[in-house]
């Protein structure tokens, strides 16, 4: 038995489950009616549609120490709100990418389609997820001493998920790739994914810069070494952030401007 496994002994994960009212919550009810037993680790928040689950809301759960998050919706094509779950799928894909960037294991987030008649499947999904989280061990952000770096990474990811750019793109993904844009042209999934990946990369970097400079002025060179980007790239982001009114020049030290991000803008 490895040391890591020993340290997980007795670990009971905290899992938040966002379940849609019409299918997955109904499936969970049916698991009860049929007495399918499963571990006690989930705590359910009922939403009307899985598409209500905001990307930022999922990330916030991890910030506050959730060991896992389960999002449950109707099977594709079965959504009570016709098309909602197709959007859920895209949102969860985005959150996973953000988690990856933040250094968080993506397996801690699961999207599952469970129908109202799949009580047994619901119980299996939960049991399987609990097992997976148990083998991963406690979230690095849970407990009294969260991993600072990962915590900041998640704050950065949450802010990126709240920002307009990623939200606008993810909401339009289906339209642009499947239905066609304003010129009646479709963007290929590959092209869109590239676009999205670039946007994620950039927005994460920008949010990171904001966190670095929050209430503490730094030069481009300082920031670059802290966020692990070239000074040129950092400057480009700072120009964008200045335009968005999120960062300002604090003062000049000789020929070197120092930038600061007002706390209230970063921790909106």
């Amino acid at each position: 038995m490895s040391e890591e496994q020993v340290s997980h002994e007795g670990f009971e994960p905290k899992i938040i489950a966002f379940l849609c009212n019409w299918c997955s919550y109904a499936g969970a009810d049916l698991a009860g009616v049929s007495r399918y037993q499963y571990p006690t680790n989930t705590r359910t928040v009922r939403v009307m549609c899985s598409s209500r689950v905001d990307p930022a809301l999922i990330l916030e759960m991890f910030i506050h120490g959730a060991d896992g998050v389960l999002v449950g919706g109707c099977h594709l094509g079965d959504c009570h709100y016709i098309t909602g779950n197709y959007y859920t799928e895209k949102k969860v894909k985005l959150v996973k990418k953000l988690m990856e960037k933040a250094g968080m294991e993506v397996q801690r987030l699961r999207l599952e389609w469970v129908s109202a008649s799949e009580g047994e499947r619901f119980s299996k999904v939960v049991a399987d997820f609990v097992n997976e989280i148990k083998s991963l061990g406690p979230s690095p952000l849970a407990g009294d001493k969260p991993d600072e770096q990962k915590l900041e990474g998640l704050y950065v990811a949450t802010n990126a998920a709240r920002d307009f750019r990623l939200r606008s793109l993810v909401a339009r993904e289906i339209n642009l790739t499947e239905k066609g844009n304003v010129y009646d042209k479709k963007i290929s999934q590959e092209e869109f994914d590239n676009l999205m990946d670039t946007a994620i990369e950039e927005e994460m970097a920008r949010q990171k810069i904001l966190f670095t400079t929050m209430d503490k002025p730094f030069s481009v060179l300082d920031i670059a070494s802290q966020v692990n980007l070239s000074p040129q790239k950092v400057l480009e982001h700072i120009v964008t952030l200045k335009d968005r009114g999120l960062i300002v020049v604090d003062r000049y030290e000789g020929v070197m401007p120092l930038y600061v991000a007002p706390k209230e803008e970063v921790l909106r």
Partner: protein
Amino acid sequence: MGDKVGAVLVIGGGIAGMQSALDLADSGFYVYIVDYSPSIGGAMAQLDKTFPTNDCAMCIMAPKLVETGRHQNIKLVTNANVEKVEGDAGNFKVTINKRPRYVDESKCTGCGLCTQRCPVEVKDEYNRGFKIRKAVYIKYPQAVPPIHCIDQDHCIGCGICETQCRAGAIQYSQEQEKIDLKVGSIIVSPGFEEFDLSVKRREYGYGRFPNVVSSLELERMLSATGPYGGVVLRPSDGMIAQKIAFIQCVGSRDRSIGNPYCSSVCCMFAIKEAVIAQEHTPGLNSTIFFMDMRAFGKEFDDYYIRAAKEHRVRFVSNNRISSVEEDSKTKNLKIVYIKGGELQEEEFDLVVLSVGMEKPKGAKELGEKLGIELNDFDFCSTTIFSPISTNKPGIYVCGVFQDPQDSPDSVAQASGAAARASSIITSERNTLTTVKEYPPERVVGEEEPRIGAFICHCGINIGGVVNVPSVVEYVKTLPNVAYAEENLYTCSQDTQEHIKEKIKEHNLNRVVVASCTPRTHGPLFQNTVAESGLNPYLFEMANIRDQCSWVHMDEPEKATEKAKDLVRMALAKARLNAALPKVPIDVKPSALVIGGGISGMNAALELANQGFEAHLIEKEGKLGGLVNRLHYGLKGEDIPGWLGKIVENVEASDKISVYKNTTVKDVSGYVGNFVTTLNQNGEEKNVEHGAIIVATGGVEYKPTEFLYGKNDKVLTQLEFDNIMYNNEINPQAKTVVMIQCVGCRDEVRTYCSRVCCVEAVKNALKAKEKNPNIDIFILFKDMRTYGFREIYYEEAARQGIKFIRFFDDTKPVVTDDNGLEVKIYDHFLNEDVILKPDYLVLSVATIPNPDNYDLAPLLKVPLTKDGFFLEAHMKLRPVEFATEGIFVCGLAHSPKFLNECVSQSSAAVSRAATILSKEKLFVEGTVSSVDEELCIGCRTCEFVCPYGAIYKDEEKLVAKVMEVLCKGCGICGASCPENAILIRNYTDLQLTAQAMAALKGGI
């Protein structure tokens, strides 16, 4: 008119009966549903998935079940049957015989303790005997009413259930009860029985060979709630079936057993099962042996094509399998079939018999009691002009009892029957229904929350696992909890009164109940809260039974901890719950009907019958549309004579304004309040109305193939019908050839036009009637004479009309180098046949009205890839769009028969009447709202909203929610780039608080 009664009796609570009941109850009539079974739901409740969307049947049906079960103006009389009917249309006196269920319906909470300890095991009919149930039981987990029943045939009278029931609901002394009802009209929707394999067609080995099962048995196997958890196992040895054969037409299209008709649904049913089985067991192979593949409905052919291509379902046509043999060792099954003119034998793991539909149990007696005429097969007899009326005024019919049909057709007919049933008692609308009156709401505002928490034991369902008293003690320590207590059954009637008292006594302004699921019991408690003068949204629920005590039975301590967390979470949300008002919206009691064909005209007349105004617009200068070109019905009915009367009635009605030569230029507004700009001969005019019915009809395809337009012996069926009607047919003509599927079921149009097979048979019979010596050849792909229309196909064959099948690679070739010649490869003769017709009649596609492409964007509703209008849900919402207040019927929806247009257009009116009959609509409080300060008008919300409920106000440049259309799904809020949209009752704050309450506590 005082002697009319504003109530309707619905006989049979399947999907059709429920739809009729909901429509009627929602438009001001009191409804009684009498069901023979202890619970409603009918056949659909047993289905796993539905075609052609593969929707989970229970997922789409459960909301309707629950709504029917708790509707204020629907009374369920289950375990009962009609004993006697007296009186006439408008005023019937009905005696119902209610059999004892030995359970007091007013006391049973459905908790299920009785079932658990019952020692008597019975084969569970719901799972086709593959599972067991108890002698005291509930039919299926989602059954409505959720009341248990003692099965007297099996109960041994041990008395245990009484000892277990904490609600005191077991009543061994119950007796049969007679209930007298007064109703104005009656809808008959008793459904069907499946063909009884144990009696006839024994040669298939059903009952003798364990691996021969019926299609409904397979359905239960495929269901996640079924015996094998969705995996198809061979009953003989429990191995996963790898190779399945479906035998079609078992008990249908079979005169020798008395069922010559087609059951209409089995072809699609088999394809669906084959597809789902393959999805559940990748690598599984299915073969369907059939005579004709009857995929005649909307999007059915696409499903058929996908099944073959994507799911590798093998289709073997032109085969009626005669028997099944078993290998006694392996229990595999052998089938002999014809391929390429030769007999072949093949072995399968499992054989599925696609059983047909028969008359419902007791059909004859029911018919006699009601005084309605039945057809030769004891289904209800109707005419093409009144497909949902029986011969007896005031009694209507829908669903399979009228003609074997699938759920969408049944649902459409059910709504249609509701329209017919209510039109004769419109004067009595709102006379017997009640509107729930609540005391004035106490304004809670920003008051500090004072929460009352009621924790349920549910007998021992919760209390036997979760330590309820400790939960109560814990809850009392939490902030804002002003009162907490435990209840044996929080849902019982006396507890409701008790909760109300406690709300007053402790001046509570929030209530949390911890018990079962909010999906079934939320509305009950919301009602209690509202009766005490609190806004119903100040209520919150914690599910500590279905999602706690029942699923953690062996871990009482952990379950108790979880229950505490769940209650703490509910409290966290409840603190933030706000009173949400129901906003009233005025309704204009009139509708715009777009299209003056038969569907549009029938809709307009039906609206007028219901007392609503109709604006009927027709693009042409004449009413009637495509039906102007029809002359005969299948039984020789006089269509022009009937159509003339309809036109007359439309034009004479003072409730109907007819606008000819008119098109729609613009549409604005929303449900209850539309404004449409019409263009009549270049002149514009605005009309205001509460609903829209789209009935734009269809168009006959103008063929480019088979020398049409080049040789004047080549006609379409409608043109042929016309020359026969006008006696212009050449009396010397010796040979008529008909070619089916011209312009459809091909690469361009993959769909089936549904009516052409029957039209061909009809015209062929007519031609024979005019000249018995004429030779007629019908060249076809599949003859799709579904339902009772099959009888005429049979008759055509009997009269010597020849049917020659062709495939995509053996299409007929038509030339006129040597006079008109048709070359067709005959698979039986194995050679080309040359025919020299005097008339070549093409059964051409019905194509959608090209105007649909202009109209759809104006109405903001979708079209299918073929250009027909796409309804909200193919299965259960066949005549309405996702956008509320807009409906569709007739050929605008998809190709269909005259009688189907009539019932579907009545259905559209029935659905519209649920809106138009109300003075005001009330918008639910759980809608989204836009913060105009934050909104930048980017229209993201508009893109993602499935209901067209949010749009950009071009003046203010911000998003606006049309609350009346919003369903509260929340997608807009979770997508808004600026976080400018609030989802009421599911706000970010509420959801975060609820989840955080879980994370902050331990697990």
